[in-house]
């Protein structure tokens, strides 16, 4: 075990919304060839058969409206390019433009799904990715939408759910990571942004577990007051709404068509809250990760994975075929921050056949359970086999002046 890991007292996870790895971080490959991003030659056919290459034209807002499809049948089309269900079909990541056309009904506009950001547009996320650790192989847990994917971050399973319906705890022996921690005498909290934004997928816990919820203001207070729980999960603001003081509160989740720059500012504010407390900074690891790709292009084929014992019916998937939870969803950005991580760390993924590692959202409760509870909890097989994401922490802590600070966030 590294000194950095020995020293670790807090894990903070910030889960953003609906952006793929290549869309947000793919351009970083031009700076560091170890990052499995974009060469510029990746492409998809459009509905006229023309080849559409990836382009560095992503904008903060107004480009991905209507919201790109990311429900199970749509993601199946994106991954398999429209090949019919059945054994032997090959995942090729060739159906993104076709799928977006089904919504836009406009060939030119369907090309927007291939756009990616240049690093200068995302100074917070790309700085954290290059200053600390970036994961080449972090995938959403299910090739589907938000709710089922976020369930994996809380329970290590979605209890068979592949859609947006409220999920039910079909196995009462599997507790949420928050309940596990509290029952074992640890502290854990979900910080949602404010009450008009609230929590997204965990309404199951709202009534029964009010003690595990707090607002983002409280997160800031807990950081400055050295009262941060052992484990914290942060939810961004999910909608534009009037503030309590009559001002404007912008969605910061980066879900299309919310402003991506506001999300950048939110990520920066979470980082700064930890970074500016010297005690907290040296004993906290911050993971910034996205729940799923939101229908936006990524070039890496999602790998197979350990099933978690559930099967979604053909009716539930909407593809005409059942799903045994044996394939991960599309790759998402994931960045781990700690002063114990050397600058420029790249955790290789499926592109590295010898040493690459695959992560998914079950890695979140899995890592927290392993660190704080010595793995002592009833867990799904999927979670038990999920990799810990704390590997990048080393024995050497970087000096304070070697770690960036973000400015202009107020």
């Amino acid at each position, binding site marked *: 075990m590294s000194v950095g890991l020995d020293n670790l007292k807090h894990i903070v996870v910030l889960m953003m919304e609906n952006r793929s790895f290549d869309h947000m971080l793919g351009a970083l490959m031009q700076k560091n060839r170890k990052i499995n991003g974009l060469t510029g030659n990746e492409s998809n056919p459009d509905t006229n058969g023309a080849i559409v290459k990836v382009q560095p034209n992503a904008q903060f807002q107004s480009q991905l409206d209507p919201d790109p499809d990311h429900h199970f049948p749509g993601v199946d089309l994106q991954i398999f390019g429209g090949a019919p269900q059945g054994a032997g079909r090959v995942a090729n990541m060739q159906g993104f433009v076709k799928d977006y056309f089904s919504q836009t009904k406009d060939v030119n506009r369907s090309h927007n799904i291939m756009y990616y950001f240049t690093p200068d547009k995302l100074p917070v996320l790309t700085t954290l990715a290059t200053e600390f650790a970036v994961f080449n192989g972090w995938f959403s847990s299910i090739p589907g939408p938000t709710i089922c994917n976020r369930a994996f971050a809380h329970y290590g399973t979605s209890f068979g759910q592949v859609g947006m319906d409220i999920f039910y705890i079909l196995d009462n022996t599997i507790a949420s990571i928050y309940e596990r921690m509290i029952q074992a005498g640890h502290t854990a909290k979900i910080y949602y942004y404010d009450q008009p934004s609230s929590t997204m*997928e965990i309404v199951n816990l709202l009534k029964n577990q009010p*003690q595990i919820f707090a*607002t983002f203001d409280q997160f800031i207070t807990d950081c400055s007051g050295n009262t941060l729980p052992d484990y914290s999960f942060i939810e961004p603001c999910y909608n534009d709404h009037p503030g309590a003081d009559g001002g404007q509160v912008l969605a910061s989740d980066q879900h299309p068509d919310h402003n991506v720059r506001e999300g950048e500012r939110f990520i920066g504010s979470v980082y700064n809250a930890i970074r500016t407390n010297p005690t907290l900074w040296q004993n906290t690891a911050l993971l910034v990760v996205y729940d799923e790709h939101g229908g936006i292009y990524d070039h890496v084929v999602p790998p197979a994975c350990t099933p978690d014992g559930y099967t979604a019916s053909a009716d539930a998937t909407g593809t005409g075929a059942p799903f045994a939870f044996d394939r991960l969803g599309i790759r998402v950005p994931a960045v781990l921050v700690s002063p114990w991580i050397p600058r420029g760390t790249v955790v290789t993924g499926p592109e590295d056949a010898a040493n690459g590692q695959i992560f998914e959202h079950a890695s979140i409760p899995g890592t927290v359970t392993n660190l704080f509870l010595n793995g002592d909890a009833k867990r799904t097989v999927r979670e038990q086999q999920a990799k810990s994401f704390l590997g990048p922490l080393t024995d050497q802590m970087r000096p304070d002046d070697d770690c960036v600070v973000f400015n*202009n966030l107020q």
Partner: protein
Amino acid sequence: MAPKIIEVPKTDAGAYNPNRPAGTLLRSQALHMREALIKHVHELTTLLNIDMKSLVTEADVSAYVHKATALLHTHGGKPAKK
């Protein structure tokens, strides 16, 4: 030496649009909240239907008060602090 400072640009003026049509995710969130409220109402109704005369022993009363307190606790205006 001071740490490197990264300037973060302000969000574009005009980004705020509370009149934007709510997408699938937000509409699902509202449905999930409604489902949670229905469950809440069921439990509330069950408690309100208990005949007060049936609370005879201290155990009866404490069981009732326990459930009532748990329900009323969730009606607080703000989430609980640590």
